[in-house]
């Protein structure tokens, strides 16, 4: 869990917490477009500070998301909200901060977004900034890319991630590649976001996981949010990034509730999140499967295991530092993902771990993924296509013996 402090007003509190020397911290002067300059900095999930220079600071406490956030005296109590509201908050803050940020998608304006992520934003910012597009994914994605090349910072919403398959031409050829093909002349600071994943009996075409299809596209970054806290932080980071970023949300996670800080914070796009430190085995997961893993973790703890759970968050590129440190500690890896077995994120992650940390492994990397099956409508069948906590428990037991 990362904890962030606003520069002003919190410095006293900073010095009271262990071992910060706030004078050593270098607050980078960012090129903010808005008038108000709020200084803030990001604490990385392993406690290091990142604010334009990589000065190290003392490790702060990290906590599993399932438990209450550890409140140090500096943080205000924060406010509670649902994940989709956190996304909207992040989006709104960025739109307020930079007038070039705009949203495009189907039903994002007057309807407020099919999952209410853009609710009321059209009233506040107008129909051009929160643009209701016709049903033409390929073209409005291309349009957002053209707008990004000429100075705007659009956010493309796919009503369901699966619909972005229609935009694959633009995402692959233009979004990912134009910066390179133009010799670095044009940047494409778009954010492509939308809900994906297996829901509750939504049928095969509305239950797609596109991270496996997009991961090979050079030039894009992919992140997956899983809690209100990281949803807001990743949304803000994605909008501020000069790279095209695909933000994967999950249909079933929109109503998760959490208390998040009142202060402004931005997370690091390339970093993984330590959910639960442990000793026996490293479990790597992302998005909805994090909750299946945490559920399995409860069972495992009762059985005497101590799993280390990491939410990789950054699907492309992988945070090999956090992952590597964990592997070096536990020597066993289990990957739990919702992607299809073939060519999924788990497959790439397995390859990366084997290549980089082979010497540290005591057992082969095990990857639990969804079945290579179109998601069935029937509830029972659908349950069997995704990884369930019981399977995770079994896998851990097998790996640890």
């Amino acid at each position, binding site marked *: 869990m990362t904890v962030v402090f606003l520069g002003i007003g919190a410095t006293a509190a900073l010095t009271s917490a262990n071992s910060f020397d706030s004078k050593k911290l270098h607050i980078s002067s960012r090129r903010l477009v808005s008038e108000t300059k709020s200084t803030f900095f990001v604490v990385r999930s392993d406690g290091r500070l990142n604010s334009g220079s990589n000065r190290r600071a003392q490790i702060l406490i990290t906590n599993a998301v399932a438990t209450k956030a550890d409140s140090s005296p500096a943080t205000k109590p924060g406010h509670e909200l649902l994940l989709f509201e956190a996304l909207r908050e992040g989006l709104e803050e960025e739109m307020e901060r930079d007038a070039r940020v705009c949203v495009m998608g189907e039903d994002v304006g007057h309807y407020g977004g099919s999952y209410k992520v853009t609710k009321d934003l059209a009233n506040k910012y107008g129909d051009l900034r929160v643009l209701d597009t016709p049903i033409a994914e390929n073209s409005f994605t291309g*349009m957002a890319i053209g707008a990004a090349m000429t100075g705007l910072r659009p956010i493309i919403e796919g009503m369901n991630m699966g619909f972005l398959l229609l935009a694959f031409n633009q995402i692959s050829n233009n979004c990912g590649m134009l910066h390179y093909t133009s010799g670095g002349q044009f940047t494409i600071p778009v954010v492509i976001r939308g809900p994906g994943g297996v829901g509750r009996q939504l049928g095969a075409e509305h239950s797609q996981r596109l991270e496996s299809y997009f991961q090979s596209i050079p030039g894009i970054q992919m992140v997956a949010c899983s809690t209100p806290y990281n949803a807001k932080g990743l949304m803000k980071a994605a909008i501020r990034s000069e790279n095209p970023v695909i933000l994967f949300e999950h249909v079933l996670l929109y109503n998760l509730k959490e208390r998040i800080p009142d202060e402004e914070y931005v997370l690091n796009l390339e970093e993984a999140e330590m959910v639960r430190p442990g000793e026996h085995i490293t479990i790597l997961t992302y998005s909805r499967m994090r909750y299946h893993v945490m559920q399995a973790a409860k069972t495992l703890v009762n059985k005497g295991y101590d799993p280390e759970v990491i939410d990789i968050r950054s699907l492309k590129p992988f945070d090999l530092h956090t992952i590597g440190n964990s592997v070096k500690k536990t020597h066993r890896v289990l990957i739990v993902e919702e992607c299809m077995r073939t060519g999924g994120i788990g497959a790439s992650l397995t390859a990366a771990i084997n290549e980089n940390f082979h010497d540290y492994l005591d057992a082969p990397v095990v990857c639990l993924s969804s079945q290579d099956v179109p998601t069935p409508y029937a509830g029972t069948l659908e349950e069997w296509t995704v990884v369930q906590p019981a399977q995770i428990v079994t896998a851990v037991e097998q790996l640890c013996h």
Partner: protein
Amino acid sequence: MSAAATKIIQPLPLNSTTTNRSPHKALFNPLKATPISSFPASTRKLRLTKPNSPHARRRSTSIFAVSDVVQEKKPTSNTFFPNLLITKEEGLELYEDMILGRSFEDMCAQMYYRGKMFGFVHLYNGQEAVSAGFIKLLKNEDCVVSTYRDHVHALSKGVPARAVMSELFGKTTGCCRGQGGSMHMFSKEHNVLGGFAFIGEGIPVATGAAFTSKYRREVLKEGDCDHVTLAFFGDGTCNNGQFFECLNMAALWKLPIVFVVENNLWAIGMSHLRATSDPEIWKKGPAFGIPGVHVDGMDVLKVREVAKEAITRARRGEGPTLVECETYRFRGHSLADPDELRDASEKAHYAARDPITALKKYMVENNLASEAELKVIEKKIDEVVEEAVEFADSSPLPGRSQLLENVFADPRGFGIGPDGKYRCEDPKFTEGTAHV
């Protein structure tokens, strides 16, 4: 689109003495060979139906965009030719641009066969009137989006010939550092937004550039932002979904864009008539509430007149225009195309209407310039092109370190390595030795 909103303006072909035309007659009839604009595609005999007569009658509410200048200029009684549409300076500028396009493309062919450039190279010979006619009316801030046949669009927009030639040779001094190639000419300085290999792919990008222009005016309150975007594409693209989707969006939001169709009748070996149910592309504009115009794309002056109106419309905030330019490519689709399917008589017909020869004739006959002056321009361009080749030849090839340099605008996108540092912080990273 209500009838009340439709303005019916009769089009005036430039070299006709009549000022009125019946609304029932389409601007041109592909089946009738008329001296002004005939459509002798050699596969005409393959057409089984006559699609156009009933359509033309129903289309009495089609909108024709017309140049105010053209409408006002009624020809004098003695002349068959219209009043002069250009000044001497404009004429010379157009001539120079077209000569540059032609010479450059001819040099490309030579260099290709000498092994200096590779891959797919698509040459623009014969279509120069469209590029010169449209792009020379633009400001620097206006954007141009093209297809793989983009060398001349880039040149017309102002990208130096040496930068384009270097790009074709794959050198670091190319406009895209050698990373784009023939089909991906980009220039931020001159607002050339590509260069796209897949047809239709650039049209949404152009729509986005036009969207930015509108956004800047209305959201960012830059009241004087009237930048226009031109999207160039071919007849084959007009059967592609992205074309129609973007016509819809551009019309819906009245974006400042002009859709320029370079209808050269052939998509590699596929005749336009064999691929399209209704081959008159300009008629597809009114279906979306956009004016559709057909113009003789081998005549730079006619193109320029239509372009003026279309661009002015866009600048005034009145929305997009669809302009179909009937043109022809003298060479094959690309340098790899043997060009065996096209009829010799068709090629001869259009070769006789070479836009450069036509402009030269116009300027000389109307005493805008002498042959000698035009020769000077030709010589100058020869030197420019030669110099471009020399420059490209002597430029360095990209080094290994260039491989990873532009993949991400923010190279932190390459991620964090096992040692905890961002990969891009490794000083040897751009040499590609870092593990990605």
